[in-house]
């Protein structure tokens, strides 16, 4: 009986790492002045993709399986705890995605992970960035080429790549 319980206890963390509740990241933004919480997957993502119709520039959207974007901007430094990012970092690591970027400097870090290609299609990626007054977690599962993102302008999205401050949409989505 004890052995069975020990085996069960050993299995639980492995199973728990296979899923992650991205909404749990929202506590990071409790003191944020600007916050964006977007979690799309399953039927909701399919519905959204369906609205792009036969638009070739948006065809890539149909290959996405999950899109989670959580971005918070703070008034002052030290308004969030970097330790709150450990769960999402552990989750991404548990997926065995390749770490393709790891920049650390002055107490801030940026990590980027890439999902392995599947059927000659690129996988998704995850970016976790922690800066003194800003924290961003992006998790995109499915197939997405970086060049696909440049097609966004054809979908009516303004090019904001040059301006860091205009990163967040005016109407921050709070779930």
């Amino acid at each position, binding site marked *: 009986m004890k052995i069975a319980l020990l085996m069960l206890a050993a299995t639980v963390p492995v199973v728990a790492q296979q899923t992650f509740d991205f909404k749990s990241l929202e506590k990071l933004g409790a003191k944020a002045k600007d916050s964006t919480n977007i979690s799309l997957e399953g039927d909701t993502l399919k519905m959204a993709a369906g609205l*792009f119709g036969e638009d070739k520039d948006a065809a890539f959207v149909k290959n996405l399986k999950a*899109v989670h974007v959580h971005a918070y901007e703070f008034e002052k430094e030290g308004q969030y705890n970097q330790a709150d990012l450990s769960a999402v970092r552990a989750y991404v690591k548990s997926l065995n995605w390749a770490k393709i970027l790891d920049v650390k400097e002055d107490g801030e870090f940026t990590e980027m992970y890439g999902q392995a290609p599947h059927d000659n299609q690129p996988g998704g990626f995850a970016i976790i960035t922690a800066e003194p007054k800003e924290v961003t977690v992006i998790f995109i599962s499915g197939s997405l080429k970086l060049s696909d993102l440049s097609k966004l302008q054809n979908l*009516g999205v303004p090019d904001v790549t040059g301006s860091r401050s205009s990163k967040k949409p005016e109407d921050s989505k709070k779930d």
Partner: protein
Amino acid sequence: MNLEDDLRAALRREPAPPDFTAKVMRRTRVVSIWHRPVTLAIAAAIAAVAILPPAYEYRQHQRALEAKDQLIAALSITQTQLQHTKQKLLQNTRHRQ
């Protein structure tokens, strides 16, 4: 003779009680088909079948539009973040050189 008296007494005309007519009418009244509970239930079901699907479809469409906006915002933020990461990486590389 007693028998005749008994019959006469038994068959003598008696006036109906004052509420007799009302009682008879109440018992024999035909409930209009439109006032029967079954009819009302069927009518409500038909109305629900007619109204609910379009309302549901409308709600789904609204949800899809909302999700589409969120998806565009998410991809836009991703694009910006990638650009920012690239700049950071370049700065870091230059710093080391």
